[in-house]
């Protein structure tokens, strides 16, 4: 019974593995498979040839048809495992296939006359091969470097602006008493729930009137003031001791100095959380950039990458490979800031 209790709290009997522990580890192991598996699947899929991508049942690893060069044949021939009429199984190379009949020869003895095999009797022999061309081809085709740089500029500048103006507003709303404070708070909270998707057209109109179309600012500015950001930072700042701010005031710090030297450094965990979300959001943003960026010089990675989606065809092999490329920076950010993120969220006054 106390073991069940311990499931509900944090202590484990030292040195003993109870069934609750086994249950927990089982759950966690399942979690690892469930959480990482799909992403691993994406990565492996991105290394498959277009044909292998569509195969069923799908193979986990990227496999391709094994071929062999046979003297007397200009092109390498496909290798198959063939069940012969006498019941024996042999590895043969396919010279040609017409309808449901395949013509095959023994690669070890190409001089022997070819035999005809019904196609059900042969099974392709395959080997692991990574289709790196999924990566190299699109890199040649589209200006990955430029799109990457644009995405980077958008992400970094937008995040800096977001952090700055939202923390300033949060500071004003957390620290000062002033006329209109409640109205400002209500405005912030009232718009907390409005998704940008539903006001896309009016925002487009505003941006167009400001003459920002086809400039990265059109992507950077509109989302910079986020109610979520203000709300999150304000909640955190409310937990800072007022004494600190008053002490700073006694120490002849100007209001700006109090904000920048005292409050900002102490709000770092919350800022880190907002930064992470801003980075993720900006890096992944698609619908809005698509609406305001039409010149390829200013494309972000997401637009460039989705250009593989045509009207009638989607070049999945390229799309998946480029998706993996855009995931790489995300994974990096995650690896380096993981601790910050996880402890940061825990501490952001989400209470």
């Amino acid at each position, binding site marked *: 019974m106390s073991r069940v209790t311990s499931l509900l709290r944090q202590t484990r009997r030292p040195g003993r593995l109870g069934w609750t522990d086994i249950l927990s580890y089982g759950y966690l192991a399942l979690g690892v498979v469930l959480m990482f598996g799909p992403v691993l699947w994406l990565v492996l899929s991105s290394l498959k040839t277009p044909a292998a991508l*569509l195969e069923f049942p799908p193979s986990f690893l990227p496999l391709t048809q094994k071929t062999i060069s046979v003297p007397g044949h200009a092109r390498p021939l496909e290798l198959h495992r063939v069940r012969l009429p006498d019941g024996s199984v042999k590895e043969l190379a396919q010279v040609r296939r017409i309808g449901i009949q395949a013509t095959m020869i023994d690669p070890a003895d190409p001089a022997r006359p070819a035999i005809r095999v019904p196609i059900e009797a042969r099974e392709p022999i395959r080997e692991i091969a990574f289709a790196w061309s999924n990566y190299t081809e699109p890199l040649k085709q589209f200006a990955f470097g430029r799109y990457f*740089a644009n995405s980077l500029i958008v992400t970094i500048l937008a995040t800096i602006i977001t952090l700055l103006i939202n923390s300033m507003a949060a500071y004003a709303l957390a620290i000062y008493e002033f006329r209109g404070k409640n109205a400002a708070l209500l405005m912030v909270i009232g718009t907390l729930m409005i998704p940008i998707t539903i006001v896309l057209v009016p925002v487009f109109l505003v941006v167009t009137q400001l003459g920002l179309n086809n400039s990265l600012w059109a992507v950077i500015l509109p989302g910079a003031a986020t109610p979520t950001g203000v709300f999150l930072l304000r909640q955190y700042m409310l937990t800072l001791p007022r004494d600190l701010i008053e002490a700073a005031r006694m120490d002849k710090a100007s209001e700006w100095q109090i904000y920048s030297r005292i409050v900002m450094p102490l709000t770092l965990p919350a800022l880190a959380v907002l930064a992470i979300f801003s980075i993720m959001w900006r890096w992944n943003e698609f619908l809005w950039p698509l609406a305001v960026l*039409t*010149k390829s010089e*200013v494309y972000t990675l997401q637009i460039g990458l989705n*250009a*593989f989606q*045509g009207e009638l*065809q989607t070049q999945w092999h390229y799309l998946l490979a480029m998706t993996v490329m855009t995931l790489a920076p995300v994974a990096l950010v995650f690896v380096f800031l993981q601790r910050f993120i996880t402890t940061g969220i825990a501490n952001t006054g989400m209470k």
Partner: protein
Amino acid sequence: MNRRHWLAGALVAVALASSPVQAQTTLRMTWYSDGNEGEVMRDLLNRFEAGNPGIKVVLDTVPFKAINENLPVQLAAGQGPDMARIVDFGGLAKFALDLRPHLANAPNWEQNFGPFLEWMREPGNTTAIPGYMTQLTVTGPLVNKTLFEQAGVAIPGPKATWDDWAKAAKAVADKVKAPYPVAFDRSGHRFFGLAVSQGAKMIGADGLPTPSDEGFRRAAQLIVDWHKSGVMSKELWGSVSGTAYRGANEEFKNAQVPFYLSGSWQIAQFDKTVGNAFDWIAAPTPCGPANCSGMPGGAGVIGIKATKHPAEVAKVMDFLASEPILSEFYARTLFVPGHIGIAKKGVAYRGASAQAAAALKVFGDAVGALDPAAYRIQGNAYSRIVFNAAISRIGQAVAGEITIDDAIKRIDADVAQQVAERNKK
């Protein structure tokens, strides 16, 4: 101080990134790609630039979604490129530039693009030359010959009916355990590939759409019935909502579809990805009570009215639409030509296998067999409204959410409402 310099440098860099240096006349063409046509176009444009040092053409490749969803908004806002590759000719006609005054040889254009120019013009206008066709598409069936052979079922002949094909495909599928005996792209355009042969006209005397005529009903009924009897799988028509497109090309490549109603644009890709896995052919469109016609369609490049350089745009267009260049474009992209002169001469497709070349020939011939009604439907300014309403509602009927009668009532209502909205001034 250093820090400040660095910051200023960064800001300048950003400013530069967002305002490119203007060299000569730079024209922009918004483009989308299904396959290699973007590369080919770039190559041709390079050739143009070499011959015309004063003009530079930038190709802005976007997801197709942006062509249909964002480009209209950008054009409406007075933004947008100098040229664009589009498919909704009727919807964007009001933004199109009339190239005629700037063209060296306008009659030549009329001669070779005549029927398609009508698609691109605003209603009532009979003279404008808005652009040219980067491809003509024509709907038609692609057949997995190997599956038919494995099942031992004979492939229906040239004048076979829809019913013949449905029966044959079902028989094949049952034998070889293919989950999709008949597959249709979930697309209004493809639906009309069936509906035209059932006698659908779509357009009333006043030029406004009247979707639910007899032929339309018959076609809709057929689609729903085929789903009920297992000839079609709900996977395509029943699995998504609204106007979403779903193709069965992946399933076809995986040898799960004996009969796939799609169109000429699939050929290049199938040639590349099916490879040696099975044999496939293109077949003529099956016959209905009215005719054996499929639907024409296609994509074209138009000039945009708001351009500051109409003469230069015309120059580029003239180059791209010229016979040798366009012929090369079709040949390298394996597109069915949307140029009457080239179509007559035939295109020497490059790098196409015998199989693909044969299929292209079938589709080329199919162009000749198109019913005038099919052209009228494609050229009507409201056609896409009807296409979208049709798949959205028939999709619901296929999913079993509404009856076919309700679906048709809804289609009429949807179309009427949208037409009214468009004509609200």
